């Protein structure tokens, strides 16, 4: 590991030691953060996958109903029937903080989802369309839950990746670099000290020789 370009002085040594302590503390904290993020991520992503499969199933049924409705109704009439929806798929959005990762929180606004309201008259529409709309409305809360879980999982995955890279950078680059630099400065200082001592002894010897 390459050492840092520093002057081998006591001041630099103290500074390096201080930076090493900070780096070690940061490394420990980030490692703890990574472990906790991974723990939460695993539970979340399992739930995410389960919810996705469920929603895909429900949507499949609803869209099949819709396909049936389209088969028995004129395309124009279908579009006209749905032109002005009777219900509003409305949600409320908030924020949650998971280990300083800001993740969204959605709740379905119940006001918009009462019992099945149909936006059209019975005369020109088919029963399949009613079914399809009812299934869609039932699937909505799960869809919103899926959106929340999936977004949270994406954001957490991103943060875990970033934290992991930071932990590795500290563990395998910065901390060894500091240790190496500290060793270099210590050795250099000791060498200087030994040099000075030998010089003094030599001078003392020379003075003693001259005196005699």
């Amino acid at each position, binding site marked *: 590991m390459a050492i840092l370009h520093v002057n081998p002085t006591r001041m630099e040594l103290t500074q390096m030691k201080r930076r090493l302590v900070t780096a070690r503390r940061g490394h420990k904290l980030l490692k703890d953060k990574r472990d906790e*993020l*991974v723990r939460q*991520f*695993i539970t979340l*992503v*399992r739930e*995410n*996958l389960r919810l*996705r*499969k469920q*929603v*895909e199933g429900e*949507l*499949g049924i*609803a*869209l099949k109903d*819709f*396909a049936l409705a*389209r088969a028995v109704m004129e395309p124009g009439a*279908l*579009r006209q029937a*749905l032109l002005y*929806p009777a*219900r509003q*798929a*409305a*949600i*409320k*959005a*908030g*924020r949650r903080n998971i280990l300083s990762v*800001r*993740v*969204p*929180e*959605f*709740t379905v606004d119940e*006001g*918009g989802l009462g019992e099945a309201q149909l*936006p059209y008259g019975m005369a020109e529409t088919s029963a399949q*369309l009613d079914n*399809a*709309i009812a299934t*869609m*409305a039932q699937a*909505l809360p799960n*869809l*919103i839950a*899926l*959106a929340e879980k*999936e*977004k949270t*999982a*994406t*954001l*957490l*995955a*991103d943060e*875990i*990746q970033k934290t992991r890279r930071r932990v590795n950078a500290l563990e395998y680059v910065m901390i060894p670099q500091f240790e190496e630099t500290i060793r270099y400065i210590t050795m250099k200082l000791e060498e200087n000290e030994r040099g000075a001592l030998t010089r003094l002894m030599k001078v003392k010897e020379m003075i003693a020789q001259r005196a005699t």
Partner: protein
Amino acid sequence: MSDKVLRIGVVGEEDAILAFKAIGAVAIPAVTADEVAAALFKLNQDKVPVIFITEQAARVAPEALTRYETSPDVAVIPIPGIMGTDGYGEARVRENVIKAIGADILINQEKKEE
């Protein structure tokens, strides 16, 4: 949580999004990459926090999806279209797992469920 009531956005083929229109979502038909990108941009500008996009539309415009991936303000979620799911949404979940953990740990879970 703010009390402001927000809408849901849907982007994709006209046949698939019609179903969402029935429950009052803001539905924008889009098939090509440019149309998808424009639809996502418009919904994002309108501060729609949840946008569902059909897998087919998501496949043609991966760049547009990546653009909103790291933003906590908008969640772009792939959903199956009229042809049913083609595995794109699930693949994205698995991608997340590989990104975070380094290996697909969900394979075992599936085997257990089976």
